[in-house]
């Protein structure tokens, strides 16, 4: 019979569909795992409501649980996800791939976003500026590093 530990390990191998350097567990969208005999219940908190990756995430989790020989029950929880739920390891992986992790503690204000210290993931300089609140997906903003003259993507604080 499958154990909760084994399920967590399997879920930790699923990459985020849009930012594949980080896993769903590191992203913090898996809230809990419960095993009841053949049935595995996963509590899942989506990131952004408009994110098209949600169905993909849900299907992939269900698929992995089936591979373990169990019956998946992936429940979308009504409580919200926050970018503070991204693990330390997840933040490190984001940074290493040129993707600035979110600053801590929502709610953000425009002034905080414009003037706060948002280090460049490439050179570490905090001499960066907001280029666009919005980016290629709902979870990203675009910033520009004045020190190494490189635009970069910043995970939004949510």
């Amino acid at each position, binding site marked *: 019979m499958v154990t909760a530990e084994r399920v967590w390990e399997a879920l930790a191998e699923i990459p985020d569909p849009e930012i594949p350097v980080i896993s769903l567990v590191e992203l913090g969208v898996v809230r809990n795992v419960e095993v009841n005999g053949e049935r595995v219940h996963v509590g899942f908190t989506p990131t952004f409501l*408009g994110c098209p990756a949600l169905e993909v995430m849900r299907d992939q989790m269900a698929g992995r649980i089936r591979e373990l020989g169990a019956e998946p029950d992936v429940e979308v929880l009504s409580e919200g996800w926050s970018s503070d739920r991204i693990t330390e390891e997840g933040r490190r992986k984001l940074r290493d791939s040129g993707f600035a992790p979110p600053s801590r503690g929502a709610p953000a204000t425009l002034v905080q976003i414009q003037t706060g210290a948002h280090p460049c993931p490439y050179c570490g300089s905090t001499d960066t500026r907001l280029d666009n609140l*919005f980016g290629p997906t709902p979870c990203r903003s675009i910033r520009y590093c004045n020190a190494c003259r490189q635009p970069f993507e910043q995970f939004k604080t949510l």
Partner: protein
Amino acid sequence: MNAQELLQLADDELVLGWRNSEWTGIAPFLEEDVAFSSIAQTEIGHARAWYELAAKELGTDADALAFDRAPEEYLCAPLVEMRMVDDWARTIARHWLYETADRIRIQVLLNSIDREVAGLAEKIDREEAYHRMHAEMWAERLRDEPRFREAVDELWPYALGLLPEEQRPLFCQAFERDEGAAVERGDHTESLLPLWKEMTMVRRSVPGASW
């Protein structure tokens, strides 16, 4: 919260999301192409979440509510129906008025005794914070622009119509304006029909289609 109230929220977000997406590719500059496309995507995501709650009460599904109703059955406010490309000043005026009004009604929903509604309002509020920042940034930029000020005056009665009467005093306070007459929900503008035809085209040609 009853299904009619949920549908008002969902229809507002869907139709405005659609209107915002009309700027994709033709906004005044690239950053705004990206911004309006992203805002449209989030609004439509919020619409879907509200439709899902309404669908549970009505025993149907979100796609059927979004795409299978007749135009006169939509409950959106006239403000969101108007086609505003290629008038950037009016677009920003509507964006600013809408996001401010939307915040007021979401704040009320945060305290809903329905846990699903309150939970969803909380999620949506966090995401909408970025829409508000964007709207306020633009309103600040255009503040002294006559075309923008005229657009705010023109759209004010329509913006009032987004909110139930008891929430309007707070809205007036936010803009330091007198309430005046509102254009209420109920009658639709001429802009809705062409939008509806385009939006529901796939579902009407292939009933039950999903994509």
